[in-house]
């Protein structure tokens, strides 16, 4: 695993000097192309090709590698094998890199030098190779469930839920007080006998507005019998006052008051 992708490895060994290929070597070279699906992208292919230089990746000739790659793509074309787009993009980039490496730099050229680009490609290959080897070493380690084992008969932790009830002395005393005094209580019922609601007043006033052509005291509009007790008078006055405020808001009447506590007067807004 650390050496090469299994499908490509034998072919890759024979990938030097394409012009001098023997028939078996040629078949192997073609197998490499046909096996292009076996590669995990252009970088993987480059790594495989780089192995044919039989040098440390740090001393690899990127120029030579670029030529190998371009030769590979060329041969694929003659064999009418469609290469995936990323292989072609890499080919274009390597062609560019090759020309940059061969030609003297143009004066005033910006950006990274061809050497920088080549060095980074070499770094990428070295890093990929290093990760391959690391992966192989990792997978070769003693592994749980294969080389060493966990307890086969685990004794689970049983969960016991315990509920504890709580109460304070105050809770206790209040509870007792509640029981002992409940006879003194009676359900509270709202006393509705002497209540005149605003809805009632509004309903009434709608019918009475017509009679308020001139300023008139609000008190004259109170319903009959609702001044008998103070509570009834308060309730009906409040309800009617609220009702005329509502009508004033709707622009149906205006109201005025001479001074504080003076009688409130209302008048219809002529339509």
């Amino acid at each position, binding site marked *: 695993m650390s050496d090469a992708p299994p499908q490509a490895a034998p072919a890759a060994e024979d990938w030097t000097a394409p012009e001098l290929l023997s028939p078996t070597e040629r078949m192997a070279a073609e197998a490499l192309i046909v096996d292009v699906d076996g590669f995990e992208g252009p970088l993987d292919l480059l790594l495989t090709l780089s192995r044919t230089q039989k040098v440390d990746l740090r001393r690899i000739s990127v120029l030579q590698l670029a030529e190998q790659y371009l030769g590979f793509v060329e041969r694929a074309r003659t064999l009418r094998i469609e290469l995936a787009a990323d292989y072609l993009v890499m080919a274009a980039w390597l062609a560019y890199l090759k020309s940059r490496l061969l030609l003297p730099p143009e004066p005033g050229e910006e950006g990274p030098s061809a050497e920088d680009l080549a060095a980074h490609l070499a770094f990428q290959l070295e890093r990929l190779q290093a990760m391959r080897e690391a992966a192989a070493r990792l997978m070769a380690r003693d592994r749980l469930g294969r080389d060493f*084992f*966990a307890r*086969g008969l685990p004794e689970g*932790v049983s*969960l016991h839920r*315990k509920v504890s009830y709580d109460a304070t002395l105050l809770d206790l*005393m209040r*509870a007792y007080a509640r029981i002992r005094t409940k006879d003194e209580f009676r*359900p509270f019922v*709202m006393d509705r006998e002497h209540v005149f609601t605003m809805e009632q007043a509004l309903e009434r006033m709608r019918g009475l507005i017509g009679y308020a052509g001139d300023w008139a005291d609000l008190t004259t509009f109170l319903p009959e019998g609702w001044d008998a007790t103070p509570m009834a008078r308060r309730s009906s006055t409040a309800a009617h006052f609220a009702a005329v405020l509502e009508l004033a808001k709707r622009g149906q009447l205006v109201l005025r008051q001479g001074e504080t506590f003076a009688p409130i007067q209302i008048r219809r807004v002529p339509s």
Partner: protein
Amino acid sequence: MTDTDEERTLFEAPPIAEQERMVEAILFASTEPVTVADLVQRMPHGADPAEALVYLRKRYEGRGVNVVKVGDAWAFRTAPDLGFLMRRETVETRKLSRAAIETLAIVAYHQPVTRAEIEEIRGVAVSRGTIDQLMEMEWIRLGRRRMTPGRPVTFVVTETFLDHFGLESARDLPGIKELRAAGLLDSRPGPSFGASRDGAEEDEATSGQSELFED
């Protein structure tokens, strides 16, 4: 791996200490207790797992796990005295139900008191569960039987109860007058009372109580 079988016969059985390690590992990893026959089959040729087991068993004597015999097979098991470590207890605190706290209050104020008397004071039946719960919590216990027809049992509060509520004796509980003086009790009904009071005996009891006394 077939040739290892051949190889094995060429060698002596591993030393007993090594066999002990093997038995230890096998017992540990197996998903069920392992018989000696099974061990023989799994261990190198010439091994004597029965003997190794004797040593292994001795080694784990008094440890946190022991080698135990299950039927005619062997397994590791947690030492019985450490069983408590294998239980995880979660404690959940809940408020007592209104029925329970009222019943408890009546027992505290009126002890010794019969169930019929509790029901008379509360004005509703007392469920068996409520009494049981209070007994289980050790806040009430059975007192003497009442010397009346039917000789009904009575209930009294316990030391645990006094402890929990910080009382020297049940007689220290404040009376109605004191409760009222302390502002714990407002005899004037609030308007919300009618609505909330008969609501339910259930969980809302506690929130109901606070409403009741907070005006």
